[in-house]
């Protein structure tokens, strides 16, 4: 059957025939890099127009509807505008850090693409410590933000960056504990194993209420980690003009913007992988006929469907909930999410030990 893994395998065989195994590896790395950058650009365009449409419909507006059919080319027009704008560096800024920061934010987002399984047997790097890698690398994104805030030499930027630091450090904890719930149930931190374990049902169904609680905590924590409303204290338009990217313009600003959307995609992809089975079709226990029908839908469609559902959920949050104050934000994490996720993890462990899950 036509699938991503077949295409990848055929390209691999063809390159090995053509140039030998060493150069084939080099060329495959180049192809993978180009593919990731291409995916970034495509995701940026799609997610921006999706966000604007969702925002408009939720706020009883029409949204962009002038450029292209139903306004679908609006984000392309915006990209062209950002590309031709001047990327200014303020006089008092630290030039090196200021110019490097957007790229750090992008590189962190790119690194996180490595262990994600986009379809059946289609993954850049099938490592055995996938979950650990993701939690470790995703916390690096705060460095880009802190760098931007510090280098801008602007009090609003610095305040935004500091808030973002406090926020990410806090919410990493409950996010990590929520991820651990699935790791405990699977008994492995390899993403491939986690997906394989969901062959007879996704964890959100198999794991009873504790996994649902873990999922809710996960979605709250990643909304905070990606600095999106209602946790967008790092940019907080009404208080800090634009927070850490106040001084950025042109393509440097666009890179921050893109990194935010890519991070949203990645955390949703990871959430889909952990709780909704990644590319695994909807299988219900031993219903062979039903499972067979579901297998006919390609695995990449399942993966992107679940991921975009979670992205929509996060967008829905953004356009519904008001922004929290910094003390409310930290209260929510340290007084509610962390204790709940700790108790929840104990419950999940109990379920895993006693084999109560399906």
């Amino acid at each position, binding site marked *: 059957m036509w699938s991503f893994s077949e295409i990848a395998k055929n390209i691999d065989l063809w390159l090995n025939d053509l140039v030998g195994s060493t150069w084939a590896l080099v060329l495959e790395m180049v192809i993978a890099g180009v593919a990731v950058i291409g995916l970034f650009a495509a995701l940026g365009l799609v997610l921006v127009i999706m966000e604007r449409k*969702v925002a408009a*419909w*939720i*706020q*009883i*507006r*029409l949204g962009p509807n002038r450029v292209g059919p139903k306004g679908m080319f609006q984000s392309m027009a915006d990209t062209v505008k950002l590309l031709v704008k001047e990327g200014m560096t303020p006089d008092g800024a630290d030039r090196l850090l200021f110019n490097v920061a957007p790229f750090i934010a992008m590189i962190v987002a790119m690194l996180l693409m490595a262990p994600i399984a986009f379809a059946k047997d289609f993954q850049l790097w099938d490592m055995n410590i996938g979950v650990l890698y993701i939690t470790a690398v995703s916390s690096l994104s705060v460095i880009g933000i802190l760098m931007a805030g510090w280098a801008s030499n602007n009090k609003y930027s610095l305040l935004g960056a500091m808030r973002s630091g406090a926020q990410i450090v806090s919410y990493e904890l409950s996010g990590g504990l929520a991820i651990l719930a699935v790791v405990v149930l699977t008994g492995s931190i390899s993403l491939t194993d986690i997906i394989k374990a969901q062959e007879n049902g996704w964890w959100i169904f198999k794991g009873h209420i504790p996994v649902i609680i873990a999922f809710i905590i996960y979605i709250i924590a990643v909304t905070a980690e990606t600095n999106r409303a209602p946790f967008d204290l790092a940019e907080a338009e009404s208080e800090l003009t634009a927070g850490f990217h106040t001084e950025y313009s042109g393509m440097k600003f666009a890179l921050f913007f893109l990194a935010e959307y890519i991070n949203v995609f990645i955390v949703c992809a990871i959430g889909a992988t952990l709780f909704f089975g990644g590319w695994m079709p909807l299988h219900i226990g031993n219903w062979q006929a039903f499972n067979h029908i579901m297998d006919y839908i390609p695995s990449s469609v399942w993966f992107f469907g679940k991921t975009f559902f979670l992205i929509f959920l996060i967008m*829905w*949050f953004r*356009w*519904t*909930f008001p922004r929290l104050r910094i003390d409310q934000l930290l209260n929510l994490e340290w007084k*509610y999410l962390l204790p*709940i996720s700790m108790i929840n993890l104990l419950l999940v462990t109990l379920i895993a030990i006693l084999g109560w899950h399906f």
Partner: protein
Amino acid sequence: MFIKDYIKDIASALKSLATGMKMTGYYFTHHKEIITEQYPDNRDTLVLAERFKGEVVMPHDENNEHACTGCTSCELACPNGSIKIITKFDVDAETGKRKKAIDTWVYHLDLCTMCGLCVEACPTNAIKMAPTFEHSVFDRNKLVKKLNEDGSKVRAGVE
């Protein structure tokens, strides 16, 4: 009862979040609720609210008669002097009495802030606010308007 309050807190928080999401979810799926007016496109079918204050007009009936007696209440009520009423004295043909009437009702749209105090001050409801808003012109002299039409006179029985 710390634990009880704690759990009650969480439950009520989740409930209120769900209420909000239900509302926005309703708007997201029901596009008929959209209130955007695509202005220049729907210019012909545009409906403005009854109470919209665009400019002051003086309604005339089919006999070219209005209800303005020239009492200048509106001129006095106007906070920024955008109304100037020039009065004259008509001589009644039958009785020979002199009677006050308006000659020109001058309205400076460029000074007007659409507060509507003149409409409230008018004892005979001779003027009202019209729901129009396309007032831009290239020559600002065009913003000084004469509201009473040529040859119009006050309706009988208004006073």
